């Protein structure tokens, strides 16, 4: 299978927002943002006069110009119940331009509009902003200390506080109890294409081209922010150069571009620089966790408690929702009698937190997979054996976990065994023992993580598909789902071919244009195939039944006697293949009325993919440098439509997971200044730091949708992160080391080794 998308991407390149050469944008001016260089300050004055005089400047806009917008959203009335809508509104509202206070480095303060891009960079330097610096709230400790408040009227930096009070009695029957503070560090999503938007206001209609995972959600947000009727807005998502959750909907920066195009009456373009992207696109993760795990000496886990403080950054975007998902998935794939969770969401003077590949579930898996290893070490049992004892057995599904999620289907133990066999676990342990015995500088670590995750958590939000068969025998799919690398065009064409026998090459897939597809949800939460794919399959079945009626009429046969030969895409009378008609003829016969079906599929349910990852690392005990040398996985996402696409999703996720474990972290200094704000400082993983991956197949069909599909987009980050972390810690566990926080950089690992050797 090769992708239908690729010839274009490989020869003339995709058409990303900054590549658009539409006539409507021919006279577009360039937007350059002026951003706060200070984490927390009052704005006491903005002087744009010098910038206005600079060459090529069309306009300079600030919050003072936002006089044509609706008021901010009302307080959501938040009191601390679960799964709340975010953003919060009220005291916690996020403005478009900063008004009288900046709350993170990178917050937009003003906008310079120029004829060309270099003029914008020059003019932005001339905008003079007077700041009165305030003490910065850095990290969760700073937020909880409450000495400085981001939103003084709220009276606290804690926006949400919820969960079950600790019940120490739950651990009374345990032989061994371990507690650990774990940091799940703040990450930058870094899609290779940063955020970008172009906008035009003409004839009472706003068009926004934006790099987004969801054109329709972007339109909804835009309508609310600008006070426009959605009918007067067209949002177009052209090719999108990666999203990873950070391009859900549209950010304030994109809203400002749209607003400014309308405000000054000129088409505008904006494509952020990477340095802007690192500061002003949302970040992910950023939880401080406390795990407590207890059980018997023979390996049965009896009780688990997870407490989370979620740093949601300077504003309450989706970050506030993430610990809800973490709590829901806290128990992981284990059958644990007593599970407790509690969380707080706190504001800090840092970039807002939102979804990043996994969005709350990698954090849950990281916590319990570390906890299981800690418990195994405490009772002196092999950690894979502890997993085997506690994994939910195959005969217990559907299974409701101790943290409240109902897992649909699973073969957790089989998945673990397949990975251990595939990796040669016993041989790896023997090699590890040999190196320990000889005191090899390069120690071997073997780390395992078993997981279950939730995909399409918002399945009831549904997804849309429209399928049209044309009188030339081709078909067009209009999907509410949204491609940004996943291969929707190929997968959707495969679904049409499988159902109707129309060759993939004759299927055109259209997405991301609200004029053509007004209703849709888009791509996140690994929801595309199981919702958008099912919607399309249902549309294809409707078209097939329509086709059967028409073909029966054309061939003067009864509908019951007709069959569709999907190899040839031809309707024929059963037992008489000579009496047949093609899709083109059927569509021509229908004529103007069209051979089409529209589906809004809202009957889906969340699904629960699962798997096990095994990472093998070599740790240089003299330098602390850890190197991943093998990565073996089972990622069971139900029935697989395209193995090639599914494997591609796993590869990319694994790399991002390994990157979190070993390299990546957004670091802020004590004043709230980001110190990893470029790709020189922020360690994106490269080809040299990864091996080829060893993927093992496993398919346990979902029962809640007709494709049997679960989501695969986020499995990699969920499994690979803790497997890699566990592996590095395992490599040095013989020195008495039980835990090292991510990222496991040489400095951290070396420090842990040195400390362990000194204390011996």
């Amino acid at each position, binding site marked *: 299978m*090769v*992708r239908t*998308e*690729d*010839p*274009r*991407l*490989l*020869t*003339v*390149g*995709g*058409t*990303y927002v*900054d*590549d658009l*050469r539409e006539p409507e944008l021919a006279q577009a001016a360039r937007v350059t943002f002026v951003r706060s260089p200070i984490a927390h300050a009052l704005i006491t004055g903005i002087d744009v006069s010098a910038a206005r005089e600079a060459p090529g400047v069309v306009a300079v806009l600030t919050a003072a110009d936002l006089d044509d917008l609706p008021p901010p959203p009302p307080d959501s009335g938040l009191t601390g119940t679960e799964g709340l809508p975010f953003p919060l509104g009220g005291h916690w509202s996020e403005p478009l331009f900063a008004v009288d206070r900046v709350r993170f480095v990178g917050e937009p303060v003003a906008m310079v509009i120029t004829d060309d*891009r*270099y003029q914008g960079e020059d003019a932005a330097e001339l905008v003079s902003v007077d700041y009165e610096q305030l003490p910065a709230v850095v990290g969760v400790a700073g937020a909880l200390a409450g000495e400085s408040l981001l939103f003084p009227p709220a009276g606290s930096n804690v926006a949400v506080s919820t969960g079950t009070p600790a019940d120490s009695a739950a651990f009374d029957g345990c032989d061994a109890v371990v507690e650990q503070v774990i940091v799940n560090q703040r990450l930058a999503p*870094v*899609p*290779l*294409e*940063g955020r970008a938007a172009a906008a035009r206001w003409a004839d009472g209609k706003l068009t926004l081209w934006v790099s987004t995972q969801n054109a329709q959600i972007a339109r909804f947000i835009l309508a609310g922010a600008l006070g426009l009727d959605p009918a007067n807005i067209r949002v177009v998502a052209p*090719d*999108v*150069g*990666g999203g*990873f959750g950070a391009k859900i909907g549209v950010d304030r920066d994109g809203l400002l571009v749209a607003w400014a195009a309308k405000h000054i009456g000129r088409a505008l373009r904006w*494509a952020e*620089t*990477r*340095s802007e992207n690192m500061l002003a696109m949302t970040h992910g993760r950023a939880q401080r966790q406390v795990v407590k795990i207890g059980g018997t000496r023979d390996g049965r886990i009896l009780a688990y408690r997870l407490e989370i403080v979620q740093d949601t950054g300077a504003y309450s975007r989706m970050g506030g929702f993430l610990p809800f998902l973490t709590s829901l998935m806290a128990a992981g794939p284990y059958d644990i009698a007593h599970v407790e969770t509690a969380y707080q969401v706190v504001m800090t003077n840092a970039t807002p937190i939102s979804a990043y590949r996994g969005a709350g579930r990698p954090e849950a898996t990281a916590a319990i997979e570390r906890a299981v290893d800690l418990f195994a070490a405490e009772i002196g049992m092999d950690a894979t054996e502890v997993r085997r004892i506690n994994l939910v057995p195959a005969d217990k599904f559907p299974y409701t976990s101790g943290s409240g999620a109902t897992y649909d289907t699973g073969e957790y133990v089989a998945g673990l065994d397949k990975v251990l066999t595939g990796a040669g676990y016993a041989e790896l342990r023997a090699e590890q023992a040999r190196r320990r015995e000889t005191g090899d500088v390069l120690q071997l670590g073997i780390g395992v993580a078993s997981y279950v995750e939730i995909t399409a958590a918002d399945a009831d939000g549904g997804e849309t598909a429209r399928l049209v068969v044309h009188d030339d025998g081709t078909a067009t799919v209009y999907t509410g789902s949204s491609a*940004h*690398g*996943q*291969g929707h065009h190929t997968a959707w064409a495969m679904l049409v071919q499988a159902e109707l026998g129309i060759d993939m090459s004759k299927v055109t897939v259209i997405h991301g244009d609200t004029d053509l597809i007004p209703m849709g949800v888009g791509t996140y939460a690994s929801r595309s195939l199981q919702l958008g794919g099912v919607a399309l399959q249902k549309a294809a079945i409707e078209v097939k039944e329509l086709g059967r009626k028409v073909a029966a009429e054309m061939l003067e046969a009864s509908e019951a006697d007709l069959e569709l030969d999907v190899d040839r895409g031809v309707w024929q009378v059963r037992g008489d293949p000579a009496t047949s008609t093609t899709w083109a003829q059927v569509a021509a016969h229908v004529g103007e009325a069209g051979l089409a079906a529209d589906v809004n599929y809202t009957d889906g349910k969340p699904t629960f993919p699962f798997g096990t990852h095994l990472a093998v690392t070599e740790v240089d005990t003299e330098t602390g440098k850890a190197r991943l040398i093998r990565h073996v996985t089972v990622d069971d996402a139900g029935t697989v439509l395209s193995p*090639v*696409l599914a*494997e*591609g999703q796993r*590869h*990319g*996720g*694994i*790399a*991002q997971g390994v990157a979190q474990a070993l390299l990546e972290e957004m670091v802020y200094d004590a004043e709230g200044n980001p110190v990893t704000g*470029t*790709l*020189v400082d922020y360690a*994106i993983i*490269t*080809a*040299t730091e*990864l091996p*080829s*991956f060893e993927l093992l197949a496993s398919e346990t069909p979902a029962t809640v949708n007709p494709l049997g599909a679960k989501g695969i987009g986020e499995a*990699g980050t969920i499994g690979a992160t803790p497997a890699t972390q566990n592996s590095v810690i395992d490599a040095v566990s013989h020195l008495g080391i039980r835990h090292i926080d991510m990222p496991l950089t040489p400095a951290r690992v070396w420090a842990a080794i040195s400390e362990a050797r000194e204390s011996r």
Partner: protein
Amino acid sequence: MKVTVTVNGGEVAAEVADRTLLVHFLRDVAGLTATNVGCDTSSCGACTVLLDGRSVKSCTVLAAQADGRQVTTVEGLSSGSEELHPVQQAFRAEHGLQCGFCTPGMVMASVSLLAENPSPTEDEVRSALEGNLCRCTGYHNIVRAVLAAASERRPS
């Protein structure tokens, strides 16, 4: 200043500001938008093109420096989407791209690698592509694609 560059075999001449970067010359003047800008620190390689046959990051080269020289972008590798260059073909066959944003640069870096080392090992491929970032593929299929292109070109 006036800059004349031979881009994919055709001459492109224009008056540009002295500070114009080659990548912006290619995108805004020559109208070739496949070459992307992915960072501002020469870290990501999305803008990789060939300058007189050797790979350069076109965000770190001034258009003026390319005056009178030959530039090849991914658009110049093949005559169209039907006839792919062996490296493009291998990227397609091995699913070596997802969102496509790093792809033009990654393909050009791979072409440059194979010109210098027609039979690289996996480690050599990984090492040669260290300056080209991809956030989608985990590099797994990119490396396979480059190795496949190499074995395709190797005389049997």
